[in-house]
C-alpha cells in the first residue's frame, strides 16, 4: 500500500498555493504535480493508496476524484482520501508527517499491507516503485529510503545521507546549514508496516517522520537502506524550482520525457479541441495544450488548456495556466499566470529594473512575477519585475500608475 503525503502547506510557492495544496499545482502544460506520483503508482501496478490531505485540499480532491484517470477506481483497493477527522477523544489536525501516518495506522491494518510506501505529493519524477520494493525485501530492510545525488549548493533543502559500501545509511542529517556532499533523501520511504507501527506507537510525541523517526533509527543502527535513484527528479516546492523545472521541459531533450509511450503520465483532462494557431501566430520553443487559441507571439513558454493569446500580444519565458487570457498588445516576460486570469489590452508585465521583492527576495529571482488566480489586470497597466499580484484582484485594486518592481498588489486594498 502507498500513502501519499499531500497535505503540507508552504509559503515558498507564494500565491500559487493560496487556494491549493502544493501537490495540486498545475505543471507541465496540462498536469498537476501529484499526477507524477499517481502515474508512477499505476505504472508500477500499485493500485492501493491513501491520499493524506489537510491544507486547501478541495482542488486536489476534485482532481483526484475516484482516481479514474490512473485506473484507481477499483473494486478492491483504489484511492482513499484521508483527511483529518474528529474522534471521541484525541481529535487533532495532522501535526506533522509522522502524526498524519499515525492517525491512519488503522487503514494500513485493514489493508493487511506488509509494506508501505510513503510518498511525497510534490515531487516531479518517474520511478518504478516495484524495483524499490524488490530491493527492500531482498535486503531485508526495516526502512529503505530513495536517495539521489544532490548539488552541495542545494543540500540545505534536503535530508543528507551517508551510506556505506553496501548502500546502508550510516548517517542522516536533515537540512544541514553548511553545504554538504552526499545523497539527498527524496522523501520516498518504504517501511515494513510492523516497524512503522512500532516506531510510531513507541514515540507518540514524534510528529515529524524524518527527524523524529528516521533519523533516530539511523542513529541506532537499524537497517535503514538506501535505494539509489539515478533518474530525474525535482522537488517543485518553491517558486524558483517550479519555474526551473517547467522551463527545462522546453529543451529539445528535457530531463523529464513526457512523450514516452512506455511511461505515460496520466491526468484528468478536460475535453477541449486541438490547439488553434491563427494568422499572426508565432510560437517557438513552447508547450501548448489542447484548447489554446493563439493569435499572438509565444516564446519559451508553457500554455495550459484553454489559454488565449490575442493578436499582437507577446508571451515570453512565462507559464500561463488553464483558461488564462492575454488581450491584444499585452506583453508578458517572465510571469507565472495562474488559472482564469485576464490580462487586459496593452498590459506590460516584467518591465524595468529587477528590484528584489520586499518580502521574500529569495523566492522571486530572475525577474519572475506571479499573478494569482482569477485576477483581472485592467487595460494599459504596467507592472515591473518580481511583483506578486494576489488572487482575485481587479480594476479597483489598481490606481492606474505603474506597479513598481518588487511590490505586491493586494486584493481589495492598497498597492
Amino acid at each position, binding site marked *: 500500500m502507498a500513502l501519499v503525503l499531500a497535505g503540507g502547506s508552504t509559503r515558498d510557492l507564494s500565491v500559487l498555493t493560496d487556494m491549493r495544496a502544493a501537490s495540486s499545482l498545475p505543471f507541465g*502544460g*496540462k498536469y498537476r504535480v501529484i499526477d507524477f506520483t499517481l502515474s508512477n503508482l499505476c505504472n508500477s501496478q500499485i493500485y492501493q493508496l491513501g491520499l493524506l490531505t489537510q491544507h486547501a485540499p478541495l482542488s486536489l480532491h476534485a482532481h483526484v476524484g475516484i482516481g479514474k484517470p490512473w485506473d484507481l477506481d477499483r473494486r478492491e483497493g483504489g484511492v482513499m482520501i484521508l483527511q483529518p477527522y474528529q474522534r471521541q477523544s484525541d481529535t487533532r489536525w495532522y501535526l506533522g508527517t509522522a502524526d498524519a501516518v499515525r492517525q491512519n495506522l488503522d487503514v494500513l491494518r485493514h489493508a493487511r499491507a506488509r509494506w508501505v510506501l510513503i510518498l511525497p505529493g510534490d515531487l516531479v519524477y518517474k520511478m518504478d516503485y516495484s524495483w524499490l520494493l524488490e530491493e527492500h525485501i531482498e535486503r531485508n530492510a526495516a526502512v529503505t529510503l530513495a536517495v539521489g545525488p544532490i548539488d552541495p549548493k542545494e543540500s540545505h533543502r534536503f535530508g543528507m545521507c551517508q551510506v556505506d559500501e553496501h548502500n546502508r545509511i550510516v548517517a542522516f542529517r536533515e537540512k544541514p546549514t553548511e553545504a554538504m556532499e552526499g545523497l539527498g533523501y527524496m522523501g520516498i520511504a518504504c517501511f515494513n508496516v510492523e516497524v512503522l507501527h512500532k516506531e510510531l506507537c513507541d514515540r507518540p510525541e514524534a510528529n515529524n517522520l524524518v527527524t523524529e523517526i528516521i533519523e533516530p533509527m539511523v542513529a541506532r543502527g537499524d537497517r535503514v537502506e538506501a535505494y539509489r535513484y539515478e533518474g530525474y527528479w525535482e522537488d517543485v516546492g518553491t517558486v524558483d524550482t517550479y519555474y526551473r523545472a517547467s522551463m527545462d521541459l522546453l529543451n529539445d531533450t528535457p530531463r523529464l520525457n513526457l512523450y514516452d509511450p512506455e511511461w*505515460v503520465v496520466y491526468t484528468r483532462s478536460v475535453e477541449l*479541441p*486541438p490547439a*488553434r494557431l491563427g494568422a499572426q501566430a508565432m510560437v*517557438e520553443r513552447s508547450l501548448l*495544450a489542447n484548447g489554446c*487559441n493563439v493569435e499572438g507571439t509565444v516564446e519559451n513558454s508553457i500554455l495550459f488548456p484553454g489559454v488565449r493569446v490575442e493578436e499582437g500580444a507577446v508571451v515570453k519565458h512565462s507559464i500561463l495556466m488553464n483558461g488564462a487570457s492575454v488581450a491584444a498588445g499585452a506583453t508578458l516576460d517572465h510571469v507565472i499566470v495562474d488559472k482564469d486570469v485576464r490580462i487586459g489590452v496593452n498590459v506590460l508585465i516584467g518591465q524595468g529594473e529587477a528590484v528584489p521583492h520586499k518580502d521574500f527576495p529569495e523566492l522571486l529571482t530572475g525577474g519572475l512575477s506571479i499573478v494569482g488566480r482569477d485576477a483581472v489586470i485592467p487595460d494599459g497597466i504596467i507592472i515591473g519585475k518580481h511583483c506578486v499580484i494576489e488572487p482575485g484582484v481587479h480594476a479597483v485594486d489598481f490606481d492606474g500608475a505603474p506597479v513598481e518592481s518588487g511590490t505586491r498588489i493586494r486584493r481589495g486594498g492598497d498597492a
Partner: protein
Amino acid sequence: MNRDVYALLLAGGVGSRLSILSAKRAKPAVPFGGKYRIIDFTLSNCVNSGVDDIGILTQYRPMSLNEHIGNGKAWDLDRMTGGVTLLQPFLGRQTGDWYVGTADAVYQNLDQVTRRKVEHVLILSGDHVYNMDYNRMIRFHEEKGADVTLAVTTVPWEMTDQFGIVETDENARVIGFEEKPARARSNLVSMGVYVWSAKALVRRLTEDAAKPDSQHDFGRNIIPAMIPDGKAFGYRFDGYWQDIGTLEAYYEANLNLVSDRPQLDLFDAEWKIHTPSAERPPVKFGSGGRSQYSLIANGCIIQGNVERSVLFPGVYVGPGAHVSDSIIMNDTRIEAGARIDRTILDKQIVVGERAIIGHGDASVANIRIPQLLHSGLTVVGKGTVIPKEARIGRNCCLAADLTEADFTSLELPPGSVLGDTG
C-alpha cells in the same frame, strides 16, 4: 433529460467516395477536425440535447467504430438506463439479414423502438458534421402535430443532385420530395435528420417492409409516400451543416476549421464536442517549430513549419520539414526536410527524410478515381512508409500499409496510384 426520445444513428454506409480513408473503417469513424471522428458531432448533439438513449446501426467495417464508441463513456453514455447500444445486423429472427436500406435497417430494429414506449424517435446520420439542438426540432414537431419532421437546409444549386430535395409550403408542410434528382426544383435539401412520432414510424416501416418493389430507403420510398397525408414537415436549420460525402468535401470541411472564421465552432464551451481522448502531453514546439493557421492536437512535436493544416494527436514534424494545406492523422511521422502540400495522410504513416508529397501539375486527375481526385489533393493510406527523397505528385492515391519495397521508383508522377486502393 429527454426520456421521451430514442435516437437511432445510421452508421453503416460504405462511404466509397472517401476512397482509402474509409477502406478500413466506416465513414462515421473517419477522423475529423484534429482529434474527433465524424460520428462525434452527431453523438455530441444528442447528449448536448439531453438525448441519452441511443442505438447505433452499424454494418460496414464496424470495428474501428465499435472501439471508438466503447461503452459510451466519452459522451457520458455509460448509464444504468439508456446509454448507447451498437446494433449490428444478426441472424436468428424472422427478418434477420443484412440491412438493405436505411428504412430496412431501422425496420429490423423496430423492437428496440416499441419496447421503449417512447413518444419520439430521432433518426440520424452518422456522417454529418454540424452542431444542432434536437430539442428545438422536437418541439417544432410537436407543435405541428407531425408524423415526421425532416431537418432541411439549403445547399448551393450545383450540389442539389447529391441530396434529397424538399419542397415545402408556407406552413412548412412538405409538398414535394425527390431523391437526388438530375434537375432540382428547389435547393432546400433533407439533412437526413428526422423526428418521428414512434407510432407513425412503426406503421410506415411495417407497410414499407411488405412492399417487394421498395428499396426500403427513407428518402426514396418512405417520405414520398407520406406527402399525400400532409403530416410531414420541414424544419429549417440555418447553422453550418456538412455532409462529408466526398474526399473534396472532407478536405474542405477540415481546412475550413483553420480559416480566419471557421463555420463550425469547436471552441464553444456551451456545446462541447466529446470524443474519447488518449492521454497525451501538450504540443511541443521545438526551436525551429513554426505554425500558423493550424489546429494541432496534444502529443504533437513540431520542429518544422506547419501552415493551414490540421494535425491529429502524436504527429511528429521533424526539423526543416514543411507542411502546408494538409491533414495529418494520429502518430504520423514527417521526418526532417520533408515537404507536404495539399495532402491527407492517414494514421501511422512515416514520410522519409526530404521526401516531397504533392508537387507538380494539379491538372492531371487521378487515373483510377478521377472523379474524386482532380483538384490537386493527394491521399496516403494508413501505415504506409514513404521512402526518403521520394517525390509524389498531386492527385495521387497511395494505398495503406505500403513498405519501401513497394516503391519501385522514387518518382510518382501526378495522378498516380500505388498499391491496392480498393
